[in-house]
């Protein structure tokens, strides 16, 4: 108890989901086999890769939970505690700690993060003193030169630095994408490498001991920071650790976000990582089992990416084409346009909070765009994310183009719609561009935006988005 739970949901005929944490995004082959077995036996052959490096199964039955949990324990795997349905603040846990899926193998990272993440997970998992946080607590540890995990979307982000104080991390606190979205703010301090675990523990304990528990809606860490201020939070962390931190100007640290290429050369220049383009994270168990077979030819692990993808590692250059072909035969073609590969969508058809399926909408939209633009789409480096509600599980609120499902009522009839957000240069949080686009018009509106971008002569979508936002485009259900 305290290491395993099922999440409750009310969509697609499923009552429970199983969110398996893949610690540091590193899934051992034996663990992958057990997940495949669980999917086959209990989860209707279906799997989802999430934006927090979890693998999620649905249609789980409560009576099967003891057998499933003991299988997971055997495999050294654990789950989220999924306490989101308690009406009051409390019962929150530390969610899967997100880190770059290529840690340890990519050539340009400053610090290998998987050992830190594993130790941090051990520190919190199943420990009674960390299972009653005011709400969930999300941590991201980034040493990736392109900050692929979008560190500041977390309650606590640790970004690796090599500074005059040595090797370590600089922390940012208070990120959360649920309404109202906010990004973690820098504490402007340096945390030495050998103190980072103690620091993570101190921040979680400050949240546990001082987080606002009077209302669930204001119980996330960001609200404590709003209430008492960033400096007070810093003082509380320092009190907890009985030490002061050295100043580090975070404005000098690069916090630009990027996405990894389909193929990345590893530290060992003879070897490569290959992203498996699981569209919006969906896989069937036969695909997953074949991926496991391919992966084990080169390694004893598969990496899990917060981009809702799997990554095969340690592939020699001369094998890459063969693996790509094998994946293609599984329906996982890495030659698809980047915009499709980078599309993310939440499992709204399962959670029951939404008016339509984000993943199905993503399929409809991308099929339409590929049909309309053909080869021209391949030039576009734009990300699209679709969420079923303002909780932003697909991270639509920090995507280049974000869609959030909603409804409007006309003559007593609910009409499914989407709010459309775009991300400009000024902030990583996207801004509302068009409200209440009827669902059937969404593809047309996105086509129009992309066409205007292609014809604008601009190469940076964020610059183009600023232009869109400056215009008078926010009209009820109006395509541009």
């Amino acid at each position, binding site marked *: 108890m305290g290491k395993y739970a099922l999440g409750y949901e009310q969509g697609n005929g499923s*009552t429970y989901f199983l969110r398996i944490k893949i610690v540091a995004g590193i899934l051992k082959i034996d663990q992958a086999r057990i997940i495949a077995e669980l999917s086959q036996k209990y989860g209707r052959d279906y799997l989802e890769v999430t934006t927090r490096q979890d693998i999620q199964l649905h249609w789980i039955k*409560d*009576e099967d939970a*003891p057998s499933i949990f003991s299988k997971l324990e055997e495999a050294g795997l654990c789950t989220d505690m999924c306490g989101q*349905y*308690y*009406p009051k603040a409390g*019962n929150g846990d530390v969610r899967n700690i997100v880190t770059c899926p290529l840690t340890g193998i990519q050539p340009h990272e400053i610090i290998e993060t998987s050992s830190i993440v594993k130790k941090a997970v051990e520190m919190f998992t199943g420990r009674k003193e960390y*299972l009653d946080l005011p709400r969930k607590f999300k941590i991201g540890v980034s040493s990736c030169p392109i900050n692929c995990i979008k560190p500041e979307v977390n309650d606590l982000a640790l970004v690796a630095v090599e500074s005059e104080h040595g090797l370590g991390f600089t922390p940012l606190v208070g990120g959360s994408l649920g309404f109202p979205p906010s990004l973690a703010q820098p504490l402007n301090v340096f945390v030495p490498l050998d103190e980072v675990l103690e620091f993570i523990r101190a921040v979680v304990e400050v949240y546990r001991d001082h987080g606002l528990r009077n209302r669930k809606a204001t119980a996330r860490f960001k609200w404590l920071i709003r209430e008492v201020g960033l400096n007070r939070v810093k003082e509380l962390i320092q009190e907890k650790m009985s030490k002061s931190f050295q100043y580090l100007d975070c404005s000098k640290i690069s916090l630009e976000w990027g996405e990894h290429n389909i193929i990345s050369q590893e530290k060992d220049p003879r070897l490569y990582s290959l992203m498996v383009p699981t569209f919006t994270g969906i896989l069937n168990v036969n695909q997953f089992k074949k991926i496991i077979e391919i992966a084990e030819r080169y390694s004893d692990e598969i990496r899990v990416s917060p981009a809702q993808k799997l990554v095969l590692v340690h592939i020699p250059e001369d094998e890459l084409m063969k693996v790509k072909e094998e994946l293609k035969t599984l329906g996982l073609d890495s030659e698809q346009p980047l915009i499709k590969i980078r599309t993310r969508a939440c499992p709204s058809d399962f959670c029951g909070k939404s008016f339509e399926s984000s993943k199905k909408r993503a399929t409809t939209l991308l099929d339409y765009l590929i049909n309309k633009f053909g080869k021209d789409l391949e030039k576009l480096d734009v990300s699209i994310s679709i969420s079923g509600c303002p909780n932003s599980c697909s991270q639509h609120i920090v995507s280049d183009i974000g869609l959030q499902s909603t409804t409007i009522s006309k003559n007593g009839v609910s009409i499914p719609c989407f709010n459309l957000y775009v991300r400009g240069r000024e902030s990583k949080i996207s801004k509302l561009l068009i409200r209440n686009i009827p669902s059937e018009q969404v593809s047309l509106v996105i086509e129009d935006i992309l066409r205007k971008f292609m014809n604008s002569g601009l190469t940076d979508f964020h610059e183009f988005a600023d232009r869109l936002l400056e215009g008078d485009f926010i009209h009820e259900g109006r395509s541009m």
Partner: protein
Amino acid sequence: MKVEVCEVGLGRYKLEILGLPCPYPTLYTIKTLEEIREGEVLEVIFDNQPSTKTIQEAVIKRGHEVLSVERLNEALWRIVIKKTSPRK
């Protein structure tokens, strides 16, 4: 976290399950029902909202009778169940 069963009257038991997420409230309810006799009554007190639905579904599926479902306060529920299927 709290899981506690006690006898509160003749043939009447109380199961408190607090701070436990799904599926534990349902599993503990089923397990406790297996321990009591046919005709006896089990009151389940819990704070995990989805269990209002999942406990009822699991209990009915196994042939027991749900006598009442009550919200005691903002964050606490009580389901009263009569064991009607034979003791296993």
